């Protein structure tokens, strides 16, 4: 007997390959309650709302530009950015070969900037990826199974919520290894609790909803219900949190590098600022330039995160953006 559950016809369309991407795409782009006025936004309401928000466009353009610079870093400024290439302390806009000048060791600031973009974005995305996956796993398990499992996992969540995560990262990174990969993973490992709390709350709220009850009564297994029924509905707020997590991971990495706990073999905006700190009185541009790059990156991510909150809220979506 072929039984088509009427409550979830949507997910059967993708049943052949239930990938994460398809789940995420479905809920990013095809939410319910779209504004009927805009034709293109009826199918992709969130994207449509994003593209009508000037702040989001600024954020997206900035981020895409940074991504482009990061990807093309080897082409824009070939070679190791830590190499000494010229006389030290060349001021910006004096030598066309080194438009942003050189630091106290004679390293090209422009090269550090573009290669630093790569480091920052890579750390940010890896850390957020680790944090979101771990947080989703723990939050979903705790929220779905409840009882003793929930008690233990909630205990874990509280431990990580209480421990100051930056201090924890400093401690872990300095006792393990200060390579970029380790730093990225450790940042993710110490910041997952936000996502876990969010997912757990969503799961607890959705657990008693009709479609979950229906799926249960048909006899779907736990895994199916968690992954195919509840998770897609619990993910939208996580997308917003993820963009904020990328931003805060970038800030954390730069703070680590600034304190000298970062990867000594990679150029990072934080280490550039830390290096320029000693020359603050005479060569302030060593600190200002990488700092501005850092602000621009975090700013663009926060703009997108903020716009996503508005775009994903169906009640706000129909409204003319103020």
């Amino acid at each position, binding site marked *: 007997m072929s039984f088509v559950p009427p409550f979830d016809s949507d997910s059967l369309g993708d049943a052949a390959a239930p990938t994460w991407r398809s789940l995420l795409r479905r809920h990013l782009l095809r939410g319910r309650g779209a504004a009927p006025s805009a034709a293109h936004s009826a199918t992709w309401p969130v994207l449509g709302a994003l593209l009508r928000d000037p702040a989001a466009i600024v954020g997206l353009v900035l981020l895409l530009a940074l991504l482009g610079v990061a990807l093309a870093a080897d082409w824009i400024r070939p070679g190791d950015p830590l190499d000494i290439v010229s006389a030290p302390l060349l001021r910006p806009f004096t030598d066309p070969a080194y438009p942003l000048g050189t630091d106290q060791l004679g390293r090209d600031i422009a090269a550090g900037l573009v290669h630093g973009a790569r480091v920052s974005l890579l750390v940010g995305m890896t850390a957020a990826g680790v944090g979101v996956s771990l947080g989703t796993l723990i939050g979903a398990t705790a929220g779905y199974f409840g009882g003793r499992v929930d008690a233990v996992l909630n205990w874990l969540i*509280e431990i990580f*919520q209480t421990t100051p995560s930056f201090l924890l990262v400093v401690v872990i990174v300095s006792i393990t290894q200060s390579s970029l990969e380790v730093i990225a993973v450790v940042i993710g490992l110490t910041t997952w609790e936000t996502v876990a709390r969010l997912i757990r709350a969503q799961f607890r709220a959705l657990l008693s909803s009709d479609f979950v009850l229906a799926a249960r009564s048909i006899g779907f297994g736990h895994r199916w219900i968690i992954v195919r029924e509840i998770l897609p509905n619990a993910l939208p707020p996580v997308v917003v949190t993820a963009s904020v997590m990328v931003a805060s991971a970038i800030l954390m990495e730069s703070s680590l590098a600034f304190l000298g706990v970062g990867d000594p073999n990679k150029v990072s905006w934080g280490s550039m600022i830390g290096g320029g700190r000693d020359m603050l009185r005479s060569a302030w541009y060593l600190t200002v330039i990488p700092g501005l790059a850092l602000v621009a990156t975090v700013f663009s991510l926060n703009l997108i995160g903020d716009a996503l909150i508005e775009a994903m809220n169906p009640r706000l979506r129909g409204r003319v953006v103020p």
Partner: protein
Amino acid sequence: MSIRLPSLSWFTWLGALRRPLVRALPTALGVVILNFALLQLVPGDAVDALVAEAGSATAETTALLRERYGLDQSSWHQLGDYLQHLLHLSLGYSPRYDMPVLDLILARLPNTLLLMGAALVISLTLGVALGTVMATWARRWPDRLLSSLAFLMYSTPGFWIGLMAIVLFAVQLGWLPSGGDGTVGAELQGWERFTDTLRHAVLPACTLASFFVAVYARLTRAAILEVQTQDYVRTARAKGLHPARVRLRHILRNALLPVTTVAGTHLGGLLGGAAVTETVFSWSGIGRLTLEAVQAREYRVLLGVLLLSSLLVIVANVLIDLLHARLDPRIRVA
């Protein structure tokens, strides 16, 4: 008609205290175990670092040192030792500083607490004030200007703001000292010492507060805009109360609830931020101690700092729960 029972409030205060306290104990224990397990994975120990610093040592000396500090025992034994010491309010002994870890941390704690307390007061008052202004003129130019400013501040790393503040206020204008927690060698006493410390604390406290000012301003704005539409606000206006009174007693008081909750969850972040700010301004507090301990591989100091930081967050959250009970009478009944 309502009957007030004064003795009841006493019970509920205790009740408000009990729940977080019961929750705090396993959390604190978990923090200790987690950090201890983590630090057991570390290659090399404090004696290694001590020997490396001294230049050389015989095998007998290192063995003696290990025995003296209990580092030759098994991990379980060391954890048991550590927990037992904790019950006696002892965090162990630091070979490097040659003093008990608790004394070491307590010596630095007031400086960090001063910095955090000042930053918290600045960020809460300024944030709530800015948020109120933003909400009052919502979607008009004062709101847009302040919102953009808050957003920029929200996206700027604290250490960079600190460095820029040093360039502006210490180097260019020369108004405030660029670092340290007191004038070196001044030997000030009483009132002069107090103002000297205060002058040194202005820049670090404002730097640390900057991010949280933005957070609380955004939060207050959103909370006020939400509370404004509630029925009881309309009722208060309809019965002819003065607009300022409605704003203060009906709107702001309710809008403060989410702000205080978030302030509690941000305390860990405030501590982490303090570590960076202390380094920028050479402020000798717990954050600087952490970095020194990292370099010296003083795990007992690190454990102690992490534990005390977590305890600080827990205690502060208990206080915030009490504040909540004060702000929201419904919590007292529940």
